[in-house]
């Protein structure tokens, strides 16, 4: 399952590592834009198969941030 950015902004923090097991609702990354920090949480439980971004990267709305299997 692809986890997508819901707004344009910078990747402020990545709170998981590749290979980590995540629960549904667990924060995966925190985006930051215009003084607002938006946590992006996993929609389903699974394993972080791939992280597509690094801390400090700029992402646009709709960009894939991580893949969770």
């Amino acid at each position, binding site marked *: 399952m692809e986890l997508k950015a819901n707004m*344009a902004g910078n990747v402020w923090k990545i709170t998981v590592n590749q290979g980590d097991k995540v629960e549904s609702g667990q924060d995966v990354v925190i985006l930051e834009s215009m003084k607002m920090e938006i946590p992006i949480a996993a929609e389903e439980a699974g394993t972080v198969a791939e992280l597509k971004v690094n801390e400090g990267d700029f992402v646009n*709305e709709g960009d894939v941030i991580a893949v969770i299997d």
Partner: protein
Amino acid sequence: MIQKVLIANRGEIAARIIRSCQKMGIRTVAVYSDADQNAPYVKMADEGYLIGPPRVNESYLNVDKIVAAAKDSGADAIHPGYGFLSENEDFVKRCQDEGLIFIGPSSDVIKQMGSKIAARKAMQQAGVPVVPGTDGAVASLEEAMETAQSIGYPVMLKASAGGGGIGMQIVASEDELAKAFENNSKRALTFFGDGSMFIEKKLENARHIEIQILADQHGNVIHLFERECSIQRRNQKVIEEAPSAFISEKTRKQMGEAAINAAIALRYSNAGTIEFLVDENENFYFLEMNTRIQVEHPVTEEITGLDIVEQQLKIAQGERLHFTQEDIKINGHAMEARIYAEDPVTFFPSPGHITKFDIPTGKAVRNELAVTEKSDVTPFYDPMIGKLIVRGETRQESISLLKQALAQYKIEGIKTNIPMLLKVVDLEQFKMGNTTTDFVQKHYLPLVQTN
């Protein structure tokens, strides 16, 4: 007398401060980051200093660079605006050490009001009512449960170091508290480096009503009545008005007196705002004190005829207030709508390039602007790009003026919250003055989410 002011801020508030300085014959110095080179406020100032890259830590929060710009330009005072360094006690101390006048209160007051726990204690001592809850952080989930039990559900769980609604949650039962406590504590630790939590009673149908005060350095304090700021999204204000349509003359007087007592107890000087939550029975409780100019100050200016920035400058140079409480009267009704670069439904920021920018005009309309046509709205700063203020004789007239003005506002190239504002001012509940802090969730979101 202050001769030259450096404005340690950006956007609409920098422009606003420069206007008052110009009126008073004070020279102005703007500071700006690489992202703000073409910003309108930089052009308005007599001088401008580039202070670093776009990121706030390297520019607008960079104390060394800002102090150096003040020294180089020969400024004798610094106006901090709101946000950034405006409530930073170390910055105030640094200004003092450098012989610069900080336009604001002492570092001690800022420190006290910056801590939710210390502020609560100071207000209790000054006889100002506070929301029922813990006087400090709760040590454990067990203690949180005991407290919640004794004050009664629903309660607000809040992070001590929190802000912007992060680490904050309404909890209606013990089960919910158990789940929310750990999650929010963990999140607060990630965001603020401090996971300590406290608990307050959740007030039902509460309104956010705040009192503007002015206090000089000679112990004179007056209030400029209230502003109601209950229309919020993400715990941030969207529409503000003065006076409040809800409180009685008696409550207005009591709130004003409570705010004055608080300022006297704190030995406060500067303009300042005491924020209260007001319940459906007009009981009011201290929320927090802002020791700086407030975003929504224009609505108070519109109904009192005073220039609050000018008053700040006069207070900072040691002048006494030129008027007493009896001189201040409410004249008409004013409203402010904040124009945000954001999606009108999700409220997520929308940075980008502005391709068209037509603003409303007219005698009853006041615009405070951070941008112009062809401006880039960058992801580095607050999404607020402007404020639209109207003044009418009555609340009803204010609403129709705001509606007309919003309809004239045309911004293209980025998403804005104007469609949301237009819907809100047209809602019957808004017109009736049923403006509680859950207004957006209760009356606006259902309207757009079903579509």
